[in-house]
C-alpha cells in the first residue's frame, strides 16, 4: 500500500496527455509526444479530468462523493488515494510546484 497523500495536496493533469471517453465510459489517454496510450476506468478518468492543480485531494474526494452519493465515504477516500498514486506513478498527473492559477 502506498503512503497516504495529504488531503491538502494539489495534483494537476500532465499537459502531454489528451483524453477521450470511449462509448463504454472508459477513458482513453494519449500522450502526443511519446505516442503512448492508456485506458482508465470511468471513475479514474473522471478523477484525472478533475485534477486541475487548484483543487486539493479533499476537494476531489468531495466532487466524486457528489457524483457517486451511494459510495461509502471511507471506501471512496481509500479508492481515490489509490487512484491518485496510480496516476502519479504513470505520470498522468503531476504535483505542481505552485498551484495552477
Amino acid at each position, binding site marked *: 500500500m502506498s503512503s497516504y497523500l495529504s488531503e491538502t495536496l494539489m495534483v494537476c493533469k500532465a499537459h502531454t496527455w489528451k483524453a477521450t471517453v470511449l*462509448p*463504454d465510459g472508459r477513458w482513453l489517454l494519449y500522450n502526443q509526444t511519446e505516442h503512448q496510450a492508456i485506458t482508465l476506468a470511468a471513475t479514474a478518468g473522471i478523477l484525472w479530468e478533475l485534477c486541475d492543480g487548484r483543487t486539493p485531494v479533499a476537494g476531489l474526494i468531495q466532487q466524486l462523493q457528489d457524483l457517486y452519493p451511494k459510495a461509502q465515504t471511507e471506501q471512496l477516500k481509500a479508492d481515490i488515494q489509490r487512484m491518485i498514486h496510480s496516476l502519479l506513478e504513470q505520470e498522468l498527473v503531476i504535483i505542481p510546484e505552485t498551484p495552477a492559477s
Partner: protein
Amino acid sequence: MLSFQRRLHLDRELDLLITASRRHLSADQQVHAAALLADGSDPQRLYNLAETHHLKMVLYRGLIQLGAASPLRDRLEREAAEQALFYEFVYPQQLAAVLAALDAAGIRALILKGYALGQAVYDQPVLRAYTDFDLLIPPDQIMQAAHILTELGYTRDTSHDYPPDYDQQHHHLVPYVHPEWLPVELHQRLVTPQGSLHIDYDSVWAQAQRIDIDGTAAETLSVEHLLIYLALHAACNHLFNVGLRALCDMCEVIAAREVPWTQVVADCRAWGCTRQVYMMLRIASEFYGPIAPEAVFAQLCPQGIAPEFLNYGITNVLETTMAGLKTSSGLAEVWQSPDPAQRWWAILARFFPPSSEVARTYDLANTDWKRWLYYPRWQARLMQRHLATGLSLLRSDPATLERAQQEAVRRDLIDWMSKA
C-alpha cells in the same frame, strides 16, 4: 420490426445489426434486439457484417445500450480503445496538419464525411469509421492544394490504373497517399456532373459551418447540405452500393441535428436532385423506420418510386455491390425484349455498327477505307467481352438472367434519377 422484412429476407444477425445501430433504442427495439441476441444469433457473423458495413463501433454502442454481457461485446470492447486511439487522436492530428498547411497557403477546404461526421454528428469520432480524408477545395485552387500535399510527403496514388483524364472527369483528383498518414482525396465537386444536377457551390461555401479539429479551426458542410451530399454521394457516385453505414450517417444527422427540411427541399429542387435525395431517404426509412416527415417525401417526389428501383437500391446497400451486368450492359438491355427476333436484330446491329462508329473507335477518318478492315477487330473485341455472358443468357442461366434484369433496372434507375 422492420417494415420491409416482408419483402426481403433478413437473417437475425442483419436484423440485429440494423436494430442495434440506432442512436437511441426504444424499449420495443431493446426487447427485439435482446431476443435476437438470446435466440442463437451467430456472433462471428454479426461481427463480420458489422465489419463489412463499417459499423463495428456503432454496434458496440448498441450492445452497451442493451446492457447484455457477451463475448462479442468483450471483443469490441478490446477493439474500442485501439480504434479510438486512431480516430480520436492520430487521424485528427494528421487532418489538422493537412488543413493547417492548406490554410497557410490561403486555400479554403471543407471536410466532407469522415471525421466531420464523427465529431459533429455522431459526437464521438470513433463511431464513424473512414479510410481517407475527403476535402472539398475551390476548383481554381485544387492544383495548388495538390502541390501543398506533395510538400507534406504525399504522392499521387499509383496502385491503381487511373485513366489519364481521371482528374478532369472525376469529382475528385487521383487520391494522394502518404507513407504514414491517411490518404487525401481533393474534391473539386461534390459529385461527378450528370443529368439535371446543378449544385450551387456558392451557397455550399457560404453556408459552411465551423468545426474544431485537434484545436485547429476548420469547416464542414451545413446540415442541409450535408444531408443532400450524403444522399448524392450514395446515389450518384455509388448507385447505393454504400453499405449500411451511409444509411446510418443519414439517420444520425437527422437524430442529432435540427434539419431545416423546408430548406432541404428547396435546395434539392434548385439543384435538380429531388429524386436522389428522396430515394436515399426512402431506403433509409425501409431499414430504420420513417426518418423524415411524410410531407418531405411528398414534396421531393410526389409520384413516388417504382418498387423495382427501391428493391434495387436496397439490394445494393445490403450487398455493398452494384447489382447488374455493367460490363455487358447493352446485351442485358436487349435481352429484356420478349421477342427473340428483336434480341437477335439488336445483337447483329451491334456486330455491324455504322462505319462511322468503327472509324471513331479506332481514330480513323470517317471516309478512310481502312475502317472496313477494322470490323473483324471490333467483332473480336465484342466476343471477348460478352461471349461468356451471352452463352449464359442463351442457356437461360438463372443467375445471369437475374443480373441482366438487374442491369436493365440499373439503367432505368440512372435515367430516372437524371431527370429529377
